[in-house]
């Protein structure tokens, strides 16, 4: 009985272990209290990407558009190549508004997934809760809409973000081909179900 209990405790302890602990990350003390995601931060720019989305065995493509309209204010839209709008969202502070979405796609569960995924792209300035180190990466623990995130900064560029729940990576964001505060390639992939959004800058 005691053996079983201690085993259970060990299991409980392991599954509750924090993400940094599981990954064996070393906590460091940095004076940096905020980090920024610069990739959609220039209000004078129209950010336009060719998008490929793999979702639940289907694959479709289109044009993904992000526009900063002001402080903490972004518009994100997705159209077909021929221009028909599939969805159009506004992120303003904590608020989120669906300006348009195809009736067929207007399911609460799907809209919530997209809202969470895209909020990360447009969350520009983030408070750092803890800082870790892994090789030459500095890893910053942050919070977006009450969920835990880890922002990986390599040579001053934000290269990766993980959304973490129960100590596990749930969604991975990879930013690559970075120059002048533009990530030409962005990949958002969900680890626990089949959804990948691949973005390639065209403008």
């Amino acid at each position, binding site marked *: 009985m005691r053996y079983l209990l201690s085993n259970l405790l060990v299991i409980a302890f392991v599954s509750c272990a924090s993400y940094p602990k599981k990954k064996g990350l070393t906590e460091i003390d940095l004076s940096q209290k905020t980090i920024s995601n610069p990739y959609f931060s220039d209000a004078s720019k129209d950010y336009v990407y060719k998008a490929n989305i793999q979702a639940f065995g289907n694959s479709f*493509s289109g044009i993904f558009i992000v526009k900063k309209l002001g402080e903490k204010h972004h518009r994100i839209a997705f159209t077909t*190549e021929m221009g*028909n709008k599939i969805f159009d969202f506004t992120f303003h502070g904590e608020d989120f508004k669906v300006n348009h979405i195809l009736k067929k796609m207007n399911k609460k569960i799907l809209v919530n997934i997209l809202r969470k995924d895209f909020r990360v792209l447009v969350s520009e300035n983030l408070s750092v809760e803890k800082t870790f180190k892994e090789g030459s990466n500095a890893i910053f623990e942050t919070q977006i809409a009450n969920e835990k995130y880890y922002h990986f900064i390599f040579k001053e560029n934000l290269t990766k973000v993980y959304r973490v729940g129960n100590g596990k990576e749930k969604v991975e964001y990879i930013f690559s081909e970075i120059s002048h505060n533009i990530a030409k390639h962005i990949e958002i992939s969900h680890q626990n179900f089949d959804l990948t959004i691949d973005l390639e800058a065209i403008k």
Partner: protein
Amino acid sequence: MHKKFYFIHEQARIYVIYLLLLLCGTSLNAQTKMSIAEANTLKVTVKALSDKTETITADFVQYKHLDFLSNDIESNGKLAFKSPNMVKWEYVKPFSYSVLFKNETLFINDNGNKSDMDMGSNKIFKQLNQLITASIKGDMFDDSEFEVSYFKKEGKSEVHFNPKDKQFAEFIKSFQITFNTKGEVQEVKMIEPSDDYTQIVFSNRTTNQPLSDAIFAQ
């Protein structure tokens, strides 16, 4: 005091009249409704041209206008049409993507990634194909599907097609085609319910040149 108020009131009235005149003047300059006779002449011209058109090739520039963007998103490509209903719509820049409408199937080539979709069962795609074919040939004066209205604009003709089908109207509020005097389609504008639009301008049009089937191979 009373006099002053009257004066302001009168001045406001003059401004309003002036503004109305200005607006009317502008809209008269920009666009006037065609008479029934003029609309019929246009229909006959376009239909006659369309009937003897076996093939079309053209270049196009597409402008996607979203109100919140600083600039329209520009893309360009080529189109090929072969009677009765084979259409290849190919984007070349800034990405490589083509759609081919052939035998009730939509073939997509997304930068080498090929897929297809059976349109037979999809009313929206059938209508989209019909619209695309018609917008290249111009011959789409079907008033069972659309509310059709005819305008004259700077020597050209502009026809507005507003879908009657509610499901289709979810995508496109109005479809507008500009014809030159020969009855050729010069420009197509698809306006969404939000008033954002896609404008497509054609150039280098050739008609009735033999087109090899290889162009329409999927």
